[in-house]
């Protein structure tokens, strides 16, 4: 399994990254190098093995909790927007989306 430059560019687009031609080549080389390492994994028979998403599920059943659906935090809009790169009137600014 090895990735073509075209596939690298497609991945970059999916990941919202913009690669220079040099970066794309570098990424292609390194990802393909890594995928070689992954081959050994494909040789392992995992038929019937349940994927482990939450590590301590091995120790005890994991039940994801839900909080009561009530407002527990005060309004902190000003504090939360203090590090935003562009805000106006409490709103985040983005480039025009609809002409």
């Amino acid at each position, binding site marked *: 399994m090895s990735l073509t430059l075209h596939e690298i560019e497609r*991945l970059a687009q999916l990941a919202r*990254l*913009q690669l220079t031609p040099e970066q794309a080549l570098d990424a292609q080389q390194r990802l393909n190098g890594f995928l070689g390492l992954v081959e050994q994994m*494909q040789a392992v028979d995992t038929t019937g093995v349940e*994927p*482990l998403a939450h*590590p301590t599920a*091995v120790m005890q059943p994991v039940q994801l909790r839900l909080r009561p659906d009530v407002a527990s935090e005060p309004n902190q809009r000003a504090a939360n927007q203090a590090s935003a790169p562009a805000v106006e009137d409490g709103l985040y600014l983005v480039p*025009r989306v609809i002409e």
Partner: protein
Amino acid sequence: MSAAALDLHQMGVAELGAALHARQTSATEVAQHLLARAHAHSGLGAYLALNEAATLAQAAAADARLSAGERGPLLGVPLAHKDVLVTRDFPTTAGSNMLQGYRSPFDATVVQRLAAAGAVTLGKLNCDEFAMGSGNDQSAYGPAHNPWDRTRVPGGSSGGSAVAVAARLAPAATGTDTGGSIRQPASFCGVTGIKPTYGRCSRYGLVAYASSLDQAGPMARSAHDCALLLSAMAGPDLDRDSTSLEQPPEDYSRYLAQPWPGASASRPLQGLRIGLPREFFGPGCASDVLQAVRAALSELERLGATLLDIDLPRTELAIPAYYIIAPAEASSNLSRFDGVRYGHRAAQPSDLLDLYQRSRSEAFGPEVQRRILLGTYVLSHGYYDAYYLKAQQIRRLIAQDFQTAFARCDLIAGPVAPSVAWAIGAKTADPLAAYLADIYTLPASLAGLPGMSVPAGFGADPLPVGLQLIGNYLSEARLLQVAHQLQRVSDWHTRVPQGF
């Protein structure tokens, strides 16, 4: 420098706590002394941010609590935080240009808990960008230098934390460990560090890398000091971290003064069975590391422990499994950096897509971009089953192998890393070589088990070597007990690099 001032930075957490209680020094005096040292040794690259006014205000508050008669093991004790834990009083960059100058509106739970216990924050510590790296050479703010040899890496990703503790810039620090990021730098710098069971310490306010693996923990100069910090850091945070364990808070120092159950004071580890995975002692590990690890194991044997060979047959598979699962989760977690709500924003974007793409490409470093691409690939349509699900199946097999091993032994020991610290830059151009060097720390990370690095002497050149101890789930207090018994009869953890 006066003799008294010299002593302050050589004192560990427990010692400082005792001196503060006895009013032999004050939190303000200790903080001032260590801030001066941080400036004097800024060339080590340990700190990314200091805020003297905030530190001294915290110290004054601790002094007021001490004056009012309040007592606590961390009250007035200074420490520093890895820069992936968000803090109100200091900027949080996660070692990335993406978050240059970012100020969190809240403190991470572990930061807040240590502050509530009276610990004084000295500053924020260097790390690999978004904790992705094992040499601290992937920080956007330059490398941190190993105080034992400044041309060597301190390890990573919690490199700044290990440097600060080893160079006596702070008695203790927080670190985070996703695939070895506490244990490996602790090993490379000769300090003690523990990654708790996944879910022990809240991930609230920990800048997310790989959420099913990320875990915070303490780094300090002894197991005793780590136990004091962990007791304050850990505990349920059920409303803020959905994977926080529902386990009551513990005093992790409770076994330190005791022998192993059933043992006597003269042979305090009698009855302890330590499993040595054959896969950790093979030709892949440098002989100087193996020699130091075996010497430390002999000390444990002299204390009464029994050593036995065990197998962790899927150790090698931990590398591909980890480097699929972690980048997959990272690619999802890091999608939040969009140039809109926080972080770097590209100048004059032509449209929304241009804003996203340029903001991210301009601000993420090369290793972060590689891992995002890899993660995007393994999660993409048509490959998800072959890579991500397969890796999670292997993750379960690795976790089951540990349970098989723990039927025969109480804890597992081996090297932390296959070599001592490498030269800065040696693996920057070859990330695959750096991935392979994570082999001994990744299995416990994937299984969510607690693991420690305990100083075990020196290898070539001479640079520190760490002994890794891996326990079963929730066994941190026992791990710390065994490490403490070793530190009672050895002095490796007390060694100070020359000039510090």
